[in-house]
């Protein structure tokens, strides 16, 4: 089992650790996942996401190669910005979803799911070998990763950061990134140079921070202690809160809403595919789109009180099994039991009734419009 550089920090904060994608990760802290979720919506929460994979792709041909492998168009992405993309097999199956940051004309930083790091890196390597002198580096243990999310996250961060020139840091716009020096509020001499992107996975404004691996705990502690001194409410949040926070605004989690067995068409992720440019899997996606998918991803809310869970069967009015729950939980912000499921397209319409089989009993649910929670930064 792998451990992030923040492992001891989590233990000292009283975290409950559990295995996740081969890593021993904090599932929750003493406040508990529901309070951690609310803290992020109300003020600010800090997440260790160092288990995710981080790659650098650079050198002549790197932009062309990535533009061919990723569903998102990269040629019009400016240096200093980032974009969400999918990585597809030739048959359209989703290998992963990821964030790609443009560091330079021919230099890219990619963040992938922990569970897919090795698979993705091998995939990039295989294509790089075929298509030219592109350089690939797995930086997963060279940089850590912390997400600091919530309406107060930037208010705090701007008070302890400077830019490359030594001036006070001004956050970039959404999906922008910059090199930032992060200091401790009471000790400005211990500062750490980090890549900071205005991105996240919670539906709140905030940042994802990439400090050098060994310096990650210093950044973590700087943020929490500065928050306390500045009177900004902030605390650590675990993977359980991260799951409910990403579910409400409708973000996919690989292994649940996404897998190699489904294409972007079923997952309602065509918006992340630029069908006007060539990319691996494009023809398969076009065919599936043309034909119409058999199943689609829907969000549902329980009408009868019961907790849906991933793996539970979905039935229609007549009791026939028609689908499967892929995420199911208590959604704290909307205060409801809710989830996502793949169901036949004729049931994938908001207002339709579904039944979730909970311990042998059919419990009524209703298909709802996505997302359940509109991201705070989307106006």
């Amino acid at each position, binding site marked *: 089992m792998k451990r992030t550089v923040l492992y001891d920090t989590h233990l000292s904060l009283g975290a409950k650790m559990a295995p996740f994608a081969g890593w021993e990760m904090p*599932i*929750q802290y003493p406040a*508990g996942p529901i*309070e951690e979720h609310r803290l992020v919506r109300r003020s600010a929460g800090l997440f260790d996401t160092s288990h995710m994979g981080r790659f650098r792709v650079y050198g002549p041909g790197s932009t062309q190669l990535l533009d061919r492998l990723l569903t998102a168009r990269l040629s019009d992405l400016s240096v200093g910005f980032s974009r969400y993309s999918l990585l597809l097999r030739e048959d359209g199956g989703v290998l992963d979803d990821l964030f790609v940051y443009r560091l330079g004309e021919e230099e890219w930083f990619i963040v992938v799911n922990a569970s897919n790091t090795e698979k993705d890196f091998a995939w990039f390597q295989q294509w790089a070998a075929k298509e030219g002198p592109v350089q690939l580096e797995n930086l997963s243990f060279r940089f850590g990763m912390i997400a600091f999310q919530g309406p107060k996250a930037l208010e705090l961060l701007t008070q302890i950061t400077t830019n490359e020139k030594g001036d006070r840091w001004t956050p970039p716009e959404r999906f922008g990134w910059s090199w930032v020096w992060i200091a401790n509020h009471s000790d400005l001499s211990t500062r750490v140079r980090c890549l900071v992107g205005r991105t996240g996975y919670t539906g709140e404004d905030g940042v994802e921070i990439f400090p050098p691996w060994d310096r990650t705990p210093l950044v973590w502690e700087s943020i929490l202690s500065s928050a306390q001194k500045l009177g900004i409410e902030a605390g650590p949040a675990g993977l359980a809160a991260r799951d409910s926070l990403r579910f409400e605004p409708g973000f996919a989690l690989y292994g649940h809403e996404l897998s190699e067995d489904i294409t972007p068409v079923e997952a309602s992720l065509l918006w992340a595919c630029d069908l006007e440019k060539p990319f691996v899997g494009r023809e398969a996606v076009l065919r599936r789109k043309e034909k119409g998918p058999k199943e689609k991803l829907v969000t549902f809310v329980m009408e009868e009180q019961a*907790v849906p869970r991933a793996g539970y069967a979905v039935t229609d009015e007549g009791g026939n099994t028609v689908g499967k729950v892929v995420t199911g*939980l208590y959604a704290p912000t909307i205060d409801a039991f809710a989830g996502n499921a793949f169901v036949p397209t004729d049931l994938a319409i908001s207002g339709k009734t579904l039944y979730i089989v909970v*311990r042998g009993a059919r419990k009524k649910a209703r298909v709802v419009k996505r997302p359940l929670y509109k991201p705070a930064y989307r106006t």
Partner: protein
Amino acid sequence: MTYDPDVKYQKSHEWARKDGTLFTIGISDYAQDSLGDVVFVELPEKGKVVQKGEAFGVVESVKAASDVYAPLSGTIVEVNSKLKEDPALVNREPFGAGWFVKIQASNPTEYEELLSATEYEAFVKGL
């Protein structure tokens, strides 16, 4: 971690509080702490007859669904309706307002077989 000395326990982490032949049933502080935030408690209807060791309810936390087992045989004469509105009572007051059901025991001597707080604490520490 609290081990209420006035109740008796079984190894599946339920407790029973004796009041004549009427027993109040809940789950231990250790159990609620292990489960984490409780979001739903599924309880039987009043009048249901249960056997000692039988699953009579389910407690759902953020993490997972877990069965709750009867520490005594008897008839369920009351269920804690407050848990419907506020399931987190189980986390906040596991030995108090977070109780699950009341059982009219058919064989009250079963209570004697349960673990004392000291025995239960020793058992938990060995887990």
